Every structure is written in structure tokens, then in C-alpha cells.
């Protein structure tokens, strides 16, 4: 177990807790840099989704996890960002300017949608944002002069200052870099007064107000910033998906994004990334299992001579091929997470870390005991 002796206020403000933490993040960065060299193009492409969903996750984490405002309409911001970017690219706007414009437009939309949030909370706000998402989806369908309606809109590969991002690996690095910048900027906000004001609004509006937080201003900032990140993610999303159609940005996608932050763990940036890994990598993992389970079990059946195993393997493969199974597994995992680990993957991660840092003294019931002890202390 390590103890941290703090000798300066600066130490509380630093990005990384100490050298060891910085080293781990450094190792992670190196691993991210090396991955494309080790994996095939297909997997590099799938991991790129982690970065794009990661930006979406940070966006929703700011709004839901830190400010405590629920949104069921974030797919709409993603769509606005994607369509705006694709539209500007088609009209010859350079990549950086196009992304900036797309982000600005989503920011403006976010600010407007955030206005009702100044009066509504909880489920009412969720319904208001849901209505917004439905309207925006309809706009994507009908505004054919811009979005090309159901005929769809092709998006070319990004070209930034003459550099072409044609293959999976280069686009992977682009997305990784943008996610890293997003995380850094959000972390900066969270260690400044603005981030603390968001947390204050989440936990007690009345106290936040009495401490000098202008609720209207900081809720609007949260909505605008969240929408801006969503627009940025939308631009990358457009490139990744290569062909935009209105039925991509459905309510289901909004719910999936919300699921991302809940599974990841509300109230932590780690959670946003963990959730992105889960949402982005679950479909390819199911696809791999679908193909490999029957084959693997068939081998076992041949080796042992028990035909039943082969049958089970084929049944599992068939089951995983059925439409809707993926959504079902998503739902099942969501339910299990909420029942078993309300703090999400981030909460689980903290426990694993504690296990190693206190080894061999960790007790499984540490958290439960602490909680019941606190309840015994005439707490409400």
C-alpha cells in the first residue's frame, strides 16, 4: 500500500495523482499507439469506435453524470454534428473549419435545447429532450436539399491540411488524438470552478445557489459543452460510417449512449471510456463468439466422441445469429450492472485496484461493512 504525502496545493490540482499514475497512463498511451501495428485492419476499425463512443460518453457524462441533467436526445446532437460536417465537406469547406462549424452549430442547438432544462429536471427533461430528438430525426428525413433524405449522404475520407486519412490505422490515430484532447479539456473543466459548480447543481441546487452558483448559467454551459462534444463526435462518426441516413440517429441510439455512461459508471471520466469500450466492442465480441463457439465445440465433440456437445455448440451459434439477440444481451447486462454494481464498471475498477493496493489485506466485505457502519452512526 502506498501513501501519498502532499506537501503543496499544486499536488491536488495535478492531472495525475503521482508519478506511478502518470506512468500507467503513459503505458496506456504507448499501447494505444502500438495497437494498429499488432492488429488486423478490421479490429483497428472496431477499436476506432471505442474512441468515437468515448467522446460521446464524455459528452453525456458531463451532462448526466456531473450536472445531473438527464437527456434522451443526444443522438440528435450526434446527427446534427454528422450532417453539418458532411454538408460543409460537400461544399468544399476545409476539414478543420468544417468540424469547427459543425461543433458550433450543435453547441447552438444544445444551448437552445438546454433552455427548458433551466426549469425542468429528471423525467420531464428526459421527455423534452426525447421530443427534440424525434423532431430532429424528422428534420433529417424531410430537409432533403441538405440531408438528401432517405437517399442518404456519402461522406468522404478526411483530408486535413493535405494529409489523407484513408486507411483504418490513420483514422484510428485521428480519433484517439481527439478523444485524448476531449478528456484533457473536460478534466481541466472538472478541476476548475465550472466543474465543481456542475457537481454542486447535481447534488443540491439550493445549496449551490446559496454558494453563488448561477443555476441558469451553469446548466446552460453544461448543455452547450455536452452538445459541442457530441457534435465533434458526430463529425468523426460521419467519416466512420461513411454514409449518413436519418434512421441511424434514432431514439435507440440515444438510449444506447445513455446506457454507455450508466454501465461505465456515472460521475467519472474513466466510466465514460469504460462504457465506450463496452458499447463499441460488445457487437464484435458477439460476432466472434457466434463464429467460434460452434467450431470450437465441434472440435471438442470430435475429440471426445460426444455428439451432444456439437449440437449445443451449433444451437448457441444459431441463437447468437438471431436478430435482436445483441439488443437482448445489452439489456441483460444493463440490468445486471444496475442490480449488482450501481457504480458501473468504474466502481468495479476501483474495487479491483483496492484489492491490489491493499493485498493481501483486502476483504470482500470492506465496502458493505463501511456502508452499514455509517448507517449505524445515527445517519439518515
Amino acid at each position, binding site marked *: 500500500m502506498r501513501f501519498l504525502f502532499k506537501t503543496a*496545493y499544486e499536488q491536488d490540482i495535478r492531472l495525475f495523482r503521482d508519478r506511478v499514475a502518470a506512468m500507467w497512463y503513459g503505458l496506456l498511451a504507448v499501447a494505444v499507439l502500438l495497437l494498429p501495428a499488432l492488429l488486423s485492419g478490421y479490429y483497428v476499425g472496431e477499436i476506432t469506435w471505442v474512441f468515437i463512443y468515448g467522446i460521446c460518453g464524455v459528452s453525456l457524462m458531463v451532462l448526466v453524470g456531473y450536472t445531473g441533467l438527464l437527456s434522451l436526445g443526444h443522438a440528435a446532437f450526434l446527427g446534427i454534428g454528422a450532417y453539418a460536417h458532411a454538408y460543409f465537406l460537400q461544399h468544399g469547406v476545409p476539414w478543420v473549419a468544417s468540424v469547427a462549424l459543425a461543433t458550433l452549430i450543435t453547441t447552438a442547438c444544445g444551448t437552445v435545447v438546454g433552455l427548458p432544462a433551466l426549469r425542468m429536471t429528471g423525467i420531464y427533461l428526459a421527455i423534452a429532450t426525447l421530443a427534440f430528438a424525434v423532431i430532429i430525426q424528422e428534420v433529417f428525413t424531410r430537409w432533403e436539399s441538405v440531408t438528401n433524405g432517405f437517399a442518404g449522404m456519402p461522406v468522404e475520407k478526411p483530408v486535413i491540411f493535405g494529409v489523407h486519412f484513408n486507411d483504418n490505422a490513420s483514422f484510428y490515430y485521428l480519433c484517439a488524438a481527439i478523444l485524448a484532447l476531449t478528456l484533457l479539456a473536460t478534466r481541466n473543466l472538472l478541476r476548475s*470552478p465550472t466543474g465543481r459548480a456542475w*457537481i454542486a447543481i447535481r447534488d443540491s441546487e439550493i*445549496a449551490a445557489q446559496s454558494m453563488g452558483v448561477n443555476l441558469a448559467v451553469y446548466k446552460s454551459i453544461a448543455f452547450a459543452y455536452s452538445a459541442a462534444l457530441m457534435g465533434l463526435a458526430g463529425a468523426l462518426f460521419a467519416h466512420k460510417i461513411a454514409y449518413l441516413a436519418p434512421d441511424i440517429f434514432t431514439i435507440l441510439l440515444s438510449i444506447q449512449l445513455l446506457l454507455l455512461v450508466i454501465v461505465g459508471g456515472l460521475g467519472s471520466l474513466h466510466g465514460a471510456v469504460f462504457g465506450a469500450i463496452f458499447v463499441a466492442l460488445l457487437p464484435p465480441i458477439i460476432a466472434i463468439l457466434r463464429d467460434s463457439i460452434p467450431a470450437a465445440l465441434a472440435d471438442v465433440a470430435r475429440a471426445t466422441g460426444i455428439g451432444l456437445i456439437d449440437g449445443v455448440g451449433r444451437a448457441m451459434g444459431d441463437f447468437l445469429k438471431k436478430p435482436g439477440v445483441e439488443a437482448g444481451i445489452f439489456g441483460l447486462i444493463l440490468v445486471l450492472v444496475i442490480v449488482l454494481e450501481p457504480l458501473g464498471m468504474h466502481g468495479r475498477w476501483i474495487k479491483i485496484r483496492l484489492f491490489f493496493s491493499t493485498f493481501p489485506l483486502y476483504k470482500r466485505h470492506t465496502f458493505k461493512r463501511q456502508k452499514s457502519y455509517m448507517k449505524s*452512526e445515527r445517519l439518515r
Partner: protein
Amino acid sequence: MTFFEADHLAINFGGIRAVDDVSFAVNKGEVFTIIGPNGAGKTTIFNLVSRIYEPTAGRLVFEDRDITRVPPHRIAALGIARTFQNIELFEHASLLENLLLARHAHKRSGFFGELLFLPYVRQMEVKHREAAERVIDFLDLQQYRDALIVNLPYGVRKVTELGRALCTAPKLLLLDEPSSGLTVEETEDMAFWIEDIKNLLGITVLMVEHDMKLVSAVSDRVLALNYGRPIAIGTPQEIQSHPEVVRAYLGG
């Protein structure tokens, strides 16, 4: 110069007149306590002063300035801080973060400066931390510094709320039942801290309190309310033997 004055303050909730024509003045450097039976309108007066409620009539004056129409989030910057009867801490943040949030009224950094965490933002953060650490030292909260509020016992939360109010560097501190839910020892500690706040930090205290022992130990002057109306004002001894006050509490 008037330090703080409530002038013919009144508020109606529907047909109920919760506070009815209450006037009092708090002098700089004193501990002024409002007492009264349940439902007398004590907390309502606090909510009026911190501008959460709109008064139906009357005026609030702080340092010769009319604050009757100041929005609630500006009150902290003027130098008025408050605690809440039913603790309103930011539960899923650490104690230190709770205190730092109280520095919000002293925030001078802009959004984009914070986004890039420019050197001046870093300097401001160090300053905020210095202020918060001074309060932690003052209230002996060092051992709970990095604990989440949800994991802290009730007594410590109560002190944390006091600390959070102090962190705004107030001139006038509003304490809403500082001793409610505390044990006898914790209440005695609270009395010492209130005296220290008055004597060492020179902060004026306006307090709502039920525990007469605490009231007589720390108060310079006491205002007794009943059904939203003031019935007596004076030193703790005068109030305790005032026939109207005795009748309000004991009936008859």
C-alpha cells in the same frame, strides 16, 4: 451605518402569513439569535434573507445596501453565507471539494481559461485551496479532508456545512439550527466554534436555534417569534424570563 436590517418583513404562503411584520437589526460583530416554537417562521426568515423566497412586503438592508431584489446567487458575493437545517451538502463530492465550491463567489476565471487550464487558473486554484485549508484547520477537519460526504457521520457533516459557509469568507453568517441532531458534546463544540467565529474571525452571526443552553451561551441578543410575529427582543436572560415567551412555549 446599518450592518444588517430587516424592515417590516412579511411573506404570505397562500392564506398563511408565515412572517408578519418582523423588524430587527443585527449589529456588526454580534451573535443574534432567533428563537420560537415550531412553525414560528424562523427558517422562513432565513430563506427570505438568502433570497430563496420573495418577501410580500418589507425590505432587507445589508451594509447600507437594499438587497430585497438581489438574485439568490449574488448573495454569497455580497458576504452573506448560510447553512441549512437539513444539511444540504454536495454528497457525492469530497469534503475538500465541498469547501472549494464555496469559493465560487470568488471565482475570477472564464470558461475558456479553465478549458485550457491556463496558468492564472492554476494560481486561482491554489488560492482557493489555501482558503479551504485554513477553514479545515480552523474546524479540525483534517482527517476527513478527502472523504466523500456520503461516508461521513452526521456530526461531521454538520461541521462541514459550517466550514463550507465560512469558506465563502462571509461578513454575515446565517446558521440554521446548528445544533439540531448533535449530541451534547458536539453541541458544546459548536458553541465554542460559534464563539471563535465571532471573536477570532470577526464574523457576525445570525442564528436560528432551539437549544436554549447553546443560545444563552453564545448569543448577544435574542429575538423571540411566535406565529410569524416578534414577541420579544433582548439579552438571553431577559428573553428566558419574558412572560410572553414563556407563554408561547408552554401555552396557557
